[in-house]
């Protein structure tokens, strides 16, 4: 955090000054470790064992916050009798189909909701359905996870004794995640591990909270979603969710990467985490809403119809009426994974003609850079918008494949457009930072020459395309021609970001169809066409007709929560689910941790933040069992977006790889999984292609050719693929060259010399880096043998024009194996070889890699077996 989010880290230091204990768990030693009370170095890719070990400790030692856990989580809820766990099935959950590598999650459901399952919750893949189709099911959930049919009335045992209750399931599931297992898999001593367990549990309860902070490298694993779930289980057990100083803080790496998922440019969701409609499940809006929500679940997702209708109204205006399902049929349908890596493989297979890249540098920043660059060489046209001539704009001229002679510029028939972009000071607009806070940035100057904002580009592109098709009578063009697209500022060709933000916020629709007063809250949204709003969770950013994101009341002049700086979604709440900061009776858990509480006299919730709860719902309110929607939220159901109002220790629906986190080894690993016969995530998405080979793992033949673990990371002085840092002299001076961090022991083993060159090799590529021999990287004893790790910052690239510094790109080493839930690449744990000296000249690099591949006997099947049969299964 000190390294990559330095200014945010000042608050950690403030906490430390007040007595907080700082623990840093990371394979590498960084500026964070330097000031932490404890640094725990663990093997990259082993985190679920570490976190699972903490969960076991909490359960075994009965350190969980019982009152919180019973009232606010699903610990007491009973799970179906036919649910089988990984401890019984040797690493698999019940419902696994080895043919497709997918699960039928029906048996993971809560007990007593079986009769609802037929309504669409369970998706049993039929014999003729490919794994691909089933994966699409995961993509159709949006953020609601999946529908919680019947969740308004679950069966609970609040004594937590029933063997089928979630807490007991958890106990059995994590029983094998012992301190000895932590030592064996993570390479962390029992003393170090137990000191973390003790600190975390001692520092949680009524009077104290523990915060977990992660950076998104945690998500970049074939089990990435389950990493985060593990942290969520710890925080729920310890009562640290919805409370000040608690929570799980995702530190995201880009100014508006939170905004990029809220208002997504992602294939599987629409604004506000509504799913993109899919061809399998969503022939019409009624079917669509049935898979988004259910009339037998609690909470605010039951109003998804209002959010969807309002979105469609804001896109298709007067054309969207109740008679035509608000133009629901205008939305294109997805049919599986259309994520960026899938798209790149389709490029390589000549199925994609055009590609827009806006403010992104996939030639350097995406996994498997070679596939990225070669993929682009198959395009008919490419549009790159950026500040500088980044590698993704110039690969046809000077990329590694051109330098090696593999591609000849004259043979590449891709047309490339480079359009200069406007910077943040040259346009108005909002960023959403990592705490869901929107901050408006004001334009200071005009962009130079032809540089323009993306807003300008998209608006004009839309105008031009619409003009070309204006006379069309083809049905396919209706969505385009009926689209609301009026963003001009009076009398200029400049679009107005303010107009767009107003549309995102939403308004009442006047009887004549024109915009009426702006909405102040998403609770005002209707499903009858009388409201419009482009992103329901952002409704309120223009509350009272004021751009709330532009508020800049100095921090020194307001409370510590600083509610009048910017605007956080939803409804300017700074801590989500903050009803949990009070006890079931509505009183603060302690004076010290008071945040939001029930004011008996006023009959409403109040506190330092906007209560994340129906304002006048008394703590002792109990709905008629089975009441759905917001009305079904009991006075002690803090998790108002969950279908049962509870925090999910166990996820009965919504995930494709299991209701609980289980440790699987990465696609490439130095060891066999000591926990189960199942080596890697049995549902991971493998891309079996000749251009995407994996190194052999553990004791497989050829694994000895790639004996080391490597991980990649950022440095303070650079920004991801370098497009905004390697062209800047200040930053380039501070971090001039690509380097690899190795321990003195590994340096001795491989003859690596500090300051000299080393070459790092995988089945994808070989790159060269300056050697940094340092104690910051420690060899670990894993499974009884020494495992060395190599650390690689990934900011450099080859080619591009005008960069102050260049170098080989660490992401070229990484192959494509994806998390099944979200299709993110496993980029943070893989194996490699490292040898002294520079890599061969450009035209000989492939030869070197091919030698490794043939020596290790690697084929497209290597590492790609989804289901490993063990003795017990």
């Amino acid at each position, binding site marked *: 955090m000190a390294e990559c989010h330095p*200014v945010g880290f*000042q608050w950690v230091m403030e906490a430390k000054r007040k007595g907080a204990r700082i623990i840093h768990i990371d394979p590498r030693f960084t500026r964070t470790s330097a000031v932490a009370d404890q640094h725990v170095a663990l093997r990259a890719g082993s985190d679920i064992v570490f976190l699972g070990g903490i969960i076991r400790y909490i359960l075994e030692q009965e350190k969980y916050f019982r009152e919180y856990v019973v009232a606010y989580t699903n610990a007491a809820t009973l799970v179906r009798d036919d649910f089988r766990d990984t401890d019984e099935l040797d690493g698999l959950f019940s419902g696994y189909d080895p043919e497709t590598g997918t699960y039928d999650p029906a048996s993971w459901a809560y007990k007593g909701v079986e009769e609802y399952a037929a309504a669409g919750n369970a998706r049993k893949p039929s014999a003729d359905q490919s794994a691909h189709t089933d994966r699409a099911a995961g993509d159709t959930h949006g953020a609601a996870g999946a529908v919680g049919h019947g969740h308004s009335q679950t069966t609970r045992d609040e004594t937590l004794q029933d063997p089928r209750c979630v807490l007991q399931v958890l106990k059995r599931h994590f029983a094998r995640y012992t301190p000895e297992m932590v030592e064996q898999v993570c390479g962390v001593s029992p003393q170090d591990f137990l000191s973390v367990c003790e600190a975390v549990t001692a520092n949680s309860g009524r009077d104290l909270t523990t915060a977990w902070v992660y950076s998104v490298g945690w998500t970049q694993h074939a089990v990435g979603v389950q990493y985060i779930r593990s942290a969520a289980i710890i925080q729920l057990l310890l009562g640290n969710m919805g409370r000040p100083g608690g929570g799980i803080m995702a530190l995201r790496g*880009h100014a*508006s*990467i939170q905004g990029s998922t809220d*208002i*997504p*440019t*992602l294939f599987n969701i*629409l*604004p506000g985490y509504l799913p*993109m409609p899919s061809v399998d499940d969503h022939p019409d809006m009624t079917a669509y809403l049935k898979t988004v929500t259910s009339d037998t679940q609690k909470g605010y997702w039951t109003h998804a119809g209002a959010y969807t209708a309002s979105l469609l109204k804001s896109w298709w205006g007067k054309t969207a009426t109740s008679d035509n399902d608000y133009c629901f*049929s*205008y*939305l*294109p*349908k997805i*049919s599986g994974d*259309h994520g*960026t890596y899938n*798209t790149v493989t389709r490029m390589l297979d000549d199925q*994609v*003609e*055009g*590609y*827009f890249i*806006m403010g992104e*540098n996939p030639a350097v920043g995406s996994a498997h850079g070679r596939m990225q660059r070669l993929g682009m060489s198959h395009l*008919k046209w490419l549009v790159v918008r950026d500040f*500088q001539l980044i590698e993704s*704009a110039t690969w046809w001229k000077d990329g590694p494949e051109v330098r090696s002679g593999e591609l000849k510029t004259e043979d*590449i*028939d891709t047309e*490339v457009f480079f359009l*200069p972009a406007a910077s943040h*000071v040259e346009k108005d607009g*909002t*960023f959403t*930072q*990592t705490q869901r806070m929107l*901050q408006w*940035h004001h334009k*200071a*100057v005009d962009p130079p020459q032809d540089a*323009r904002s*993306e807003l300008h580009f998209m608006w004009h*592109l839309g105008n031009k395309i619409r003009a070309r098709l204006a006379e069309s009578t083809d049905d396919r063009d209706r*969505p*385009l021609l009926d689209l609301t697209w009026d963003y001009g500022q009076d009398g200029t060709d400049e679009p107005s970001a303010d107009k767009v933000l107003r549309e995102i916020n939403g308004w009442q629709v006047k009887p004549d169809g024109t915009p009426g007063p702006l909405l102040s809250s998403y609770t005002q949204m209707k499903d009858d066409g009388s409201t419009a709003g482009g992103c329901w969770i952002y409704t309120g950013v223009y509350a009272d007709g004021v751009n709330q994101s532009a508020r*800049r009341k*100095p*921090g020194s002049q307001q409370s510590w929560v600083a509610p009048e*700086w910017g605007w956080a979604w939803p409804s300017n709440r700074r801590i989500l689910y903050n009803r949990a900061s009070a006890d079931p009776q509505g009183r603060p858990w302690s004076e010290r941790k008071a945040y939001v509480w029930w004011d008996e006299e006023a009959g409403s919730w109040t506190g330092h933040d906007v209560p994340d709860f129906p304002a006048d719902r008394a703590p002792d309110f109990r709905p008629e069992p089975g009441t759905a929607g917001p009305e079904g939220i009991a006075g002690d159901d803090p998790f108002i977006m969950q279908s049962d109002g509870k925090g999910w220790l166990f996820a009965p629906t919504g995930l494709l790889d299991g209701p609980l986190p289980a440790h699987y080894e990465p696609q490439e690993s130095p060891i066999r999984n000591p926990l189960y016969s199942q080596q890697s995530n049995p549902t991971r998405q493998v891309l079996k292609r000749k251009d995407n080979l994996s190194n052999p793992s553990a004791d497989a033949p050829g694994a000895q050719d790639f004996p080391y673990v490597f991980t990649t990371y950022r440095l303070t*002085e650079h920004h991801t693929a370098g497009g905004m840092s390697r062209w800047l002299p200040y930053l380039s*001076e501070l971090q*001039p060259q690509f380097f690899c961090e190795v321990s003195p022991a590994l340096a001795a083993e491989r003859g690596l010399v500090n300051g000299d060159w080393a070459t790092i090799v995988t089945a994808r590529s070989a790159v060269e880096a300056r050697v940094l021999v340092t104690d910051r990287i420690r060899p670990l004893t894993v499974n009884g043998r020494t495992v060395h790790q190599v650390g690689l910052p990934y900011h450099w690239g080859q080619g591009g024009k005008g*960069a*102050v510094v*260049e*170098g080989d790109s660490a992401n070229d080493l990484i192959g494509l194996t994806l998390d099944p839930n979200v299709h993110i690449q496993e980029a943070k744990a893989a194996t490699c070889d490292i040898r002294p000296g520079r890599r061969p000249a450009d035209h000989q690099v492939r030869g070197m890699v091919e030698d490794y591949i043939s020596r290790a006997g690697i084929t497209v099947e290597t590492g790609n077996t989804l289901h490993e049969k063990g003795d017990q299964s």
Partner: protein
Amino acid sequence: MSAGKTFLSWPVLRQVTGSDRLGRGAAAKSGEDWTARTRTADKVVQSVCPYCAVGCGQKVYAKDGKVIQIEGDPDSPISRGRLCPKGSASEQLVNSPTRQTTVLYRRPHSTEWEHLDLDTATDMIADRVVESRRRTWQDTDEQGRILRRTLGFAHLGGATLDNEENYLIKKLFTALGAIQIENQARI
């Protein structure tokens, strides 16, 4: 690597090898009559750092239509006036001499860039979108179910774009039937 050459000329090396090793000599001292750039600015706006998601507050000082300084905003309850090396360097990001400020076009098989004006380029791109969409349009799948889409072109966006920009990207491309609209957020 061109880095080697530049390396020796870098200020930090020149400093430690020169006569003023600690950097406290004349070169680092402001003259008596110097004025901070921020005082001569004719405009200052509140902004947000464009790098990471901490969201530090910035004050952007401009004069004669040019940014002359970017500093931390002490009013921000997030950052209290601080910026890290990246945020502090953002004036260089804006005023970079290597910044490409005109449109470039590379024709098929060409070895060089050529220049285009912005409007022509946008027209050409609009034509490409319309043609690719037409060629790759899918009305239905093999079972006759409605798809109403194209997989003929794709988009990958950085996560330092504004929400308003992402909104128009998603809205226009979805209306065109394009599905493969993606973002750094998946990477």
